[in-house]
């Protein structure tokens, strides 16, 4: 019997950083269509930037996302540096790389924790967030803030990182290697997680390309695209590292990509600390000439894309920001359809969207009678119960 039901997910949840609203059209337990509504927190930052000077804009746009607060300003700065043809000092390139990789490390650990929570593995949640904490601490000692680092500026870096701090960063990320190894093995060797995540929410490479998916979402679908490798910026072409790419396209593949990328991040940070030489960190930038520039940076979730147009005044005429989730969220149209409801929470979480929903506002409503059936908390419980069942059997 066709039971025409709409499942509302969202739009607000305190766990997640942005508001998005999903309507799942379900037939029994199977999802037949997905509709996404975004922009509940649209802050008009692109418009706001047109009223700020070129130097003020980075402070605004690092507030685009609390987690990608190094990637967004860097993409913008690279776009402006392209217009003004600035040669950034070598030491600054390394400083940018170190901060961006620390950011990736803490973001991926955050995701692993949240994914664990959605599946009912709260130990994974506790572990991942515990190991994330030292990364946040070194970011604070190195840049002055746990989020919104304000580290990069047009022409270089605002603040140098001392040798003592560099040694401290090296020590912390080296110590992180062992617990991360343990966490990775615990996740990848767990037969229940294999059963729960393999073959779930598959995104084919063709769909990933058609929807323009980037970052771990694309690399988990066998598309080895990574701005750090393809269009190297900062010091990524000066260190040795690998693009992690897994062909399966399911949630498990995306988890593998993120976990293995943490090791690559550690590798990059340690090489940067070894190679970095004393020197200038800031090039003198006069006026920004008229022109158009494109800057893209591999943020933890994927490519963040910035376009800047200058008319020769001290303010940008247009500044376009495209965050990675904007291209990754539409892939749900391809990956969620045909899934069971209990698998949707983790499939939606698998692209690490800034996605959210609250226990107060999220309800599964019968399409004809509008009678509530499930709340979001019930859906998480449903997902956790499925794991429990599998673990027992």
């Amino acid at each position, binding site marked *: 019997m066709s039971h025409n039901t709409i499942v509302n997910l969202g739009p607000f949840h305190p766990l997640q950083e942005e508001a998005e609203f999903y309507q799942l059209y379900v037939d029994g337990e199977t999802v037949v269509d997905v509709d996404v*509504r*975004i*922009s509940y927190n*649209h802050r*008009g930052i*692109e*418009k*706001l930037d047109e*009223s700020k000077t070129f130097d003020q804009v980075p402070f605004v746009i690092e507030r685009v996302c609390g987690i990608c607060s190094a990637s967004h300003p860097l993409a913008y700065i690279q776009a402006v540096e*392209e217009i003004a043809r600035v040669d950034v000092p070598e030491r600054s390139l390394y400083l940018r790389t170190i901060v961006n990789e620390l950011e990736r490390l803490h973001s991926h650990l955050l995701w692993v924790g949240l994914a664990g929570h959605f599946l009912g593995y709260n130990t994974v949640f506790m572990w991942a967030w515990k190991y994330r904490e030292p990364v946040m601490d070194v970011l604070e000692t190195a840049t002055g803030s746990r989020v919104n680092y304000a580290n990069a500026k047009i022409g270089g870096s605002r603040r140098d990182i001392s040798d003592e701090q560099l040694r401290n960063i090296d020590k912390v990320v080296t110590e992180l290697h062992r617990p991360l190894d343990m966490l990775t093995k615990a996740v990848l060797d767990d037969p229940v997680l294999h059963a729960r995540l393999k073959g779930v929410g598959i995104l084919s490479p063709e769909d990933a*390309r*058609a*929807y*323009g998916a*980037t970052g771990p979402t694309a690399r988990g679908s066998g*598309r*080895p*695209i990574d*701005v750090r*490798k*393809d*269009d*190297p910026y900062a010091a990524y072409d000066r260190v040795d590292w690998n693009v992690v790419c897994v062909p399966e396209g399911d949630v498990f593949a995306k988890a593998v990509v993120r976990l293995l990328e943490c090791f690559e991040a550690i590798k990059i940070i340690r090489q940067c600390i070894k190679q970095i030489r004393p020197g200038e960190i800031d090039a003198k930038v006069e006026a920004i000439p008229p022109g*158009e520039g*494109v800057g*893209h940076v591999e943020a933890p979730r994927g*490519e963040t*894309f910035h*376009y800047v*147009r200058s008319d020769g005044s001290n303010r940008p*005429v*247009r500044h*376009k920001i*495209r965050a990675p989730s*904007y*291209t990754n969220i*539409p892939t749900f*149209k391809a990956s969620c359809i045909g899934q069971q409801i209990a698998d949707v929470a983790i499939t939606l979480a698998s692209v690490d969207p800034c996605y959210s929903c609250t226990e107060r506002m999220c309800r599964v409503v019968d399409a004809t009678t*509008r009678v509530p059936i499930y709340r979001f908390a019930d859906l998480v419980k449903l997902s956790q119960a499925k794991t429990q069942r599998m673990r027992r059997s």
Partner: protein
Amino acid sequence: MSVTQPGIDTPLTGFVGEVLEALGDLVVDIEQCGPRRGIARIDPARTIEAAQKMSAMEGSRLATATGIDVRDGIDVLYHWAFEPQGAVVTLKVLAARPDLAVDSVATVIPAANWIEREMHDLLGANFRNHPDMRRLILDDSWPEGVYPLRKSFDQVADRPPLPPNQSPPDVDLNAKRQGRS
């Protein structure tokens, strides 16, 4: 490499040059052609043909699009990224006044779906034959015909008043409060 179009004096070089050359006479002007970045203006009547050619190219991906309010209308910029070459080729189309319309490429490449809806919301550009032109960015209570990203829109003075607060029809807040006390 030779220049394909008379009147275009920017020399075509490198990978970006190959991409622009493959587009042939779709390109009406080349503004920038560097090793990894290119900007070209294309014929507005042949937007779909350009998108088909670009999406058929090896390694192409539609990164996003940008809409800019300019004197003659809305400039729509499609940013195509190429991997592993690491190039970004920007194709400009002018949605000219008064109807501000160009053909939608969302039917060719699904990645254009959301961004075209966004440009429609914020700038008032019209995309012909778009499969799903509902609002994406603006709230349902936002007045019709007010475009916040236009240059003429002032963030403070032109901001429409907020809609009144509404409770969902099936929730009686008073009954809920009494029940708790």
